[in-house]
């Protein structure tokens, strides 16, 4: 009995804190999304005369619809690159060697850097007047467009920076999976006359497919958080070419004061992220059931 009480006692403060700082804000966010709340309009925070107005406006808001498309493009492209490059890196570094083990740590640097420092690094790579990229192009007599302010390249430059930042994550996950594959399997395939490509395709790939999917899902959920890169590199522009939903919600709330409408955008975004997260958990369960 005393033990039970202790467990309850140990758990309660955390639950109270989480309720206060996660559940209450979520409820408040939903409440705000039902109002035309603007900081500059008195009484707008409690105006529930037309609660679903914000949600009704959303489908007809070209910037909102565009932001979902931009987010989809950014997420799909960066997740694909990160999973592919992470896998290639992991295959390259999956060798038993002291030097390689030592080197692996340095491959993780981009991922652990503060996101704003990553953004600063890419800001200077993309800054025409001082960038090593532009120096190199000039030396080769190639004229590069201003990448982050070009309609054609702005989103690509965000994808490149995001891929640089997060490939170490997928690399780390895939490497961990590769190390669980017993060497005997590929040895046996080798004896049977399989070439390297066949061994990869028929032995290695089936082993690492679940981890490829899972690390891709993690990156997909997190790709909503590319905020510092967009904030510093393009500011959502040119026009709305790189304006993801997260950034649009930020501008609405903290730039144009449309707090109620921004809350509605955020609620929709939350629902999407939750849906994807639940999908991830469901897949994780299924994987456990299969194993």
């Amino acid at each position: 009995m005393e033990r039970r009480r202790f467990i309850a006692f140990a758990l309660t403060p955390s639950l109270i804190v989480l309720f206060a700082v996660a559940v209450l804000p979520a409820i408040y966010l939903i409440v705000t999304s039902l109002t035309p709340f603007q900081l500059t309009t008195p009484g707008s925070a409690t105006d529930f005369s037309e609660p679903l107005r914000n949600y009704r406006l959303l489908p007809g808001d070209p910037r909102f619809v565009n932001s979902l498309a931009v987010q989809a493009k950014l997420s799909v492209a960066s997740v694909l690159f990160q999973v592919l490059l992470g896998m290639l890196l992991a295959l390259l570094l999956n060798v038993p060697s002291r030097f390689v083990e030592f080197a692996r740590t340095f491959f993780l640097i981009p991922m652990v850097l503060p996101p704003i420092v990553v953004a600063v690094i890419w800001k200077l790579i993309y800054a025409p007047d001082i960038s090593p990229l532009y120096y190199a192009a000039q030396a080769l007599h190639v004229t590069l467009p201003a990448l982050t302010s070009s309609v054609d390249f702005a989103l690509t430059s965000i994808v490149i920076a995001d891929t640089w930042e997060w490939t170490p994550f997928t690399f780390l996950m895939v490497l961990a999976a590769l190390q669980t594959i017993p060497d005997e399997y590929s040895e046996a395939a080798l004896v049977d006359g399989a070439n390297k490509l066949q061994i990869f395709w028929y032995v290695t790939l089936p082993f690492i497919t679940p981890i490829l999917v899972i690390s891709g899902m993690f990156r997909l959920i997190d790709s909503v958080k590319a905020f510092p890169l967009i904030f510093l590199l393009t500011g959502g522009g040119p026009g709305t070419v790189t304006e993801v939903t997260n950034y649009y919600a930020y501008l609405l709330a903290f730039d144009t004061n449309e707090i109620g409408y921004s809350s509605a955008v955020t609620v929709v975004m939350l629902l999407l992220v939750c849906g994807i997260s639940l999908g991830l958990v469901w897949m994780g369960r299924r994987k456990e059931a299969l194993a």
Partner: protein
Amino acid sequence: MSESSLRKATPGRLVAITVTLLILLSPFLWLLQMSFKTNDEILQFPPPLIFTPTLQNYISLWHSAFSASFVNSLLSASLSTTLALLFGVPAAYALSRWAGRGKHALSFAILVTRMAPPIAFTIPFFLFYRWIGLLDTITGLVLVYTSFNLPLVIWMMQPFFDTIPVSLEEAALVDGARTRTVFTKIVLPMVTPGIAATAILCFLYAWNDFFFALILTRTNARTAPVAVVNFMNYEGWEWGKIAAGGSLVMAPVLIFSLAVRRYLVSGLTAGAVKG
């Protein structure tokens, strides 16, 4: 076990690894070398690869408002880490020992609070802080970071407690010890490495944050990441200071993450580095 003939550290592979690493790290190294250049050298074409390194950028940062921001970052990150551990470690222990139904649902609910995009918290926090006067205060930042790190602590620490056999605790209980004593005197010392790793990860999350600090602070509680961005202004960009500030912001991160690299994956998958 014989070493595989397929996975061998051939010279060719080692060269490929080294070249890949250099390419991968070149953007990072470019920022680092820039922080030791004068503004003239930064703007020179072609960029001088051999130059006399100067600490001028760092010295001028030291004498600017940046040092106060650095202290703000240190304060908010370490205080929030302490609080998150204080609340989270006992909770993780409780979850680990609690056999009741609903344990998994509760664990998942705790994790979900961390998966949500930061903007979902920022709007309510901003309005609430504005109302009670917590905008632009260290207290306000500590509160947000604690709430963001709490789920991480619970998720990181639970497996550590799981590895401690319950029979060990039962023996002490039979001898008449109270659960509280068993927890503090027997269980906690055994998970000290886990606590250290978790603490470092919490510190890094708070330290790395840009989004919350951008919106919830102005001048008094401005953190180092926001201060770096403030060097980009319309009067001309102070690239030397930006590079030096960026290097200073990433210094503790690099040191700490080397220390906990074994736990990085579990830490990162239990949520995400806040944007």
